[in-house]
Structures are given as C-alpha cells and as structure tokens.
C-alpha cells in the first residue's frame, strides 16, 4: 500500500513539475514572440490607417483602390497598395516634422534648399519614405516641402522653385498634395496653427 502511495506521489509531482516547466517555456515563448512581430506590416497598418486624414484626395485617388470594408480588409486584399499609402503618410510625417524644425530656426527666404543641409531637423525627417531628400522653400510666412515620391531620385530643387512658389499660394490644405506635375508637396504656415 505504502509503495502505491509513493508511486502516486512521484507521478503527481512529475506531472506538476512538467506542467510548471511547460508553462514557463510557453511564457518565455510568448515574451520572445512579442519581439518577433512583423514590424513592417504592423507599422504599415498603423500609418496607412491615418491616410484619409493626412493625404489629400489628389494623392489618394492615384493610389490603389480603397474599396475594402475596413483597413485590415484593404491590407489583406492589397498589401502593396496599403504599403504605398503608408509610405505617403510617412512622407507627410517627415515633411511636417521638417517644417516644425525649420519654423524654430528659420531658413533663407525664396531659396531652394535640399533638406540634407537642414541639420536642425532629425535625420529621419530630412528624407521622404523612399529615402530621398526633400526640396524646401520659404516664401513669406509659408514653407513648402517637395518630394518626388514613388522612389524617384531627389528632384532638382532650383528647377522646382516656380512650382513651389505657385503651390505656396494655391494649396489651402496642410495635407500631402499631388501637383499636376506629379510632384508631392506639403505646404504649411511657418509655425503650424500659430
């Protein structure tokens, strides 16, 4: 009888220990899994979700269809299109941060400037989502930031000055807009909302 009890106790202890070890292993696995999140896709969803807020219709209508019933449905049906939308949101974010930095430490007026020289801005904010520098202009109280978008090389900033000046007068939104020339622009007052 005593032997049976000993055996049962050993089996019970083994089961409990195995359970604890399994639990511990799974917990470790869970912690590890949070560090192996697909950042690119998750970030694309988070940024792309804000597209309707920060991208002008002139940009949105040139992007792949938004006919999905929700943003995750859209991401599932067209991951590439959704990523592209996230890239433009990221470009708006960098351009707007750049304008904020430029507002604090002004730049020469009526001059074409490549964002790579604007060290008052964080390095990430000096390039668009395709890693190309922006062209930056200051006309009176308005700052214009241009991007060629779509992974093209940085535009020739001097040659775009006329377009930038026109945009500084005609663009009435602080969203990212697409000009008829194909150039993307963010136009803000020197100090947003001041």
């Amino acid at each position, binding site marked *: 009888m005593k032997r049976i009890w000993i055996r049962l106790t050993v089996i019970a202890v083994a089961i409990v220990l195995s359970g604890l070890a*399994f*639990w511990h292993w*799974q*917990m470790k*696995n*869970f*912690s590890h*899994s*949070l*560090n*192996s*999140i*697909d*950042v690119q*896709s*998750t*970030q694309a*969803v*988070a*940024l792309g*979700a*804000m597209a*309707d*807020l*920060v*991208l*002008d*219709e002139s940009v*949105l209508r040139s992007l792949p269809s938004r006919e999905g*019933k*929700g*943003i*995750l*449905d859209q*991401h*599932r049906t067209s991951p590439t299109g959704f990523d592209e939308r996230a890239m433009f*949101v990221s470009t708006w*974010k960098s351009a*707007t*941060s750049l304008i*904020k930095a430029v507002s604090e430490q002004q730049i020469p007026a009526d001059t074409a400037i490549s964002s790579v020289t604007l060290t008052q801005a964080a390095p990430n904010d000096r390039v668009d989502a395709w890693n190309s520098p922006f062209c930056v202009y200051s006309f009176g109280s308005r700052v214009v930031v241009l991007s060629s978008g779509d992974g093209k090389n940085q535009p020739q900033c001097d040659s775009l000055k006329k377009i930038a000046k026109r945009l500084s007068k005609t663009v009435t*939104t*602080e969203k990212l807009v697409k000009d008829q020339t194909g150039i993307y622009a963010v136009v*803000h007052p020197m100090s*947003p*909302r001041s």
Partner: protein
Amino acid sequence: MTPPPLTPPSARNNGVSDGGGGGGGGPDCAGKKIELNHNVTVSSDATGAINEVDVRLNEDELVQIPSKGDSPGFIVARNSWANVTLAPNGAVTVGVTNGVLIEKSAIGAAVTSATFNVDPAAHNNGNFTEVKGAVSVFSLITLGSMDTPSDFLKDKFNESSQLANIFSTLRALMQLINQTFNCAGIKKP
C-alpha cells in the same frame, strides 16, 4: 473573446458636426465627432485640435495579421474598430473594440488597449504605462478580465523594443496630427 469593452464610433455621436457646443473658446465643432468616411471618424479636444481617431478595422470577417514566419498572429474579431487617442500629457492609447488576440503558441494575450508615453528624462524610446488585457490559454480561456490593467502584460510589452517602436511612431504621428489639424478645417476627402 468577451464582448466589446469600447463603444464603436457608430454608436456614439456619429456624423459631421454642425455647430453648437464646443465650449472653452474653441470652434463650434470642438469636442464633436466628425465622420471623414465609412472607415474613419475623428474627434477633437476643447480647442478643436484633433486628438482622437477611430478607424474601422474590418467588417464581416475575422482577420489574422500578419503572421509571417516566426511572428505572432494578431487576430481581430469581426466588426472591430481601433480607437487612437492622444492625451494632453502626450500619451497615446490604442484601443480595439473587441480586443486583439495575440497568439503564437499555447500562451497568448487578449488585449483591449495599450497606453504608451515617452518620458523625456528617461532618454529612451518610451514605455507602455498601461496595458488592459489578460493572458489567454490556447486562445480559448482568458485568465482574468480583458478590461482591467495587467501588470504582467505591461511588463511583457515593455520587453518588446519592436512594439515600442511601432507605438513611438504612432505617438509622433498623432502629435503632428494634433498640432496640424483643427476640426474646423477638417474636410471629407
């Protein structure tokens, strides 16, 4: 998973604001919800600055994202909305109406909201200050309520530099939106 802890925007003050209220010297639309389209609704604080964005995640189908290679899957129940709120102290909170199930193996988490902030004195990317949710086992049982803050999940979230990077980007984006857009100037695209 348990029923929605957050009220979907469609059940709240939906539609484009049309004046009245506001208070605090802000525009008439201050504090009201503005529906930009079928998927996006924004709200503003007393000054009219946009501080809250509701985004429709999905409709009829349960969605699993991204689940690539070793990465854990995020399972979102049908008819879910995400609510992203920027608090006056700079903290960003992301809530999901029906919660999100994060699973990879036997142990996972059912999370309804996560709050993230950056302490300038800490010189780091920021930290999760609150995570509401519960540990789930085999995606079937949740150990505790999904609506109560979980220190365990907060610690686990804080161990993930990747989650911190994603929330840090989202926080910076919400801050720019808040500083740039006012409810009076927001137009339907």
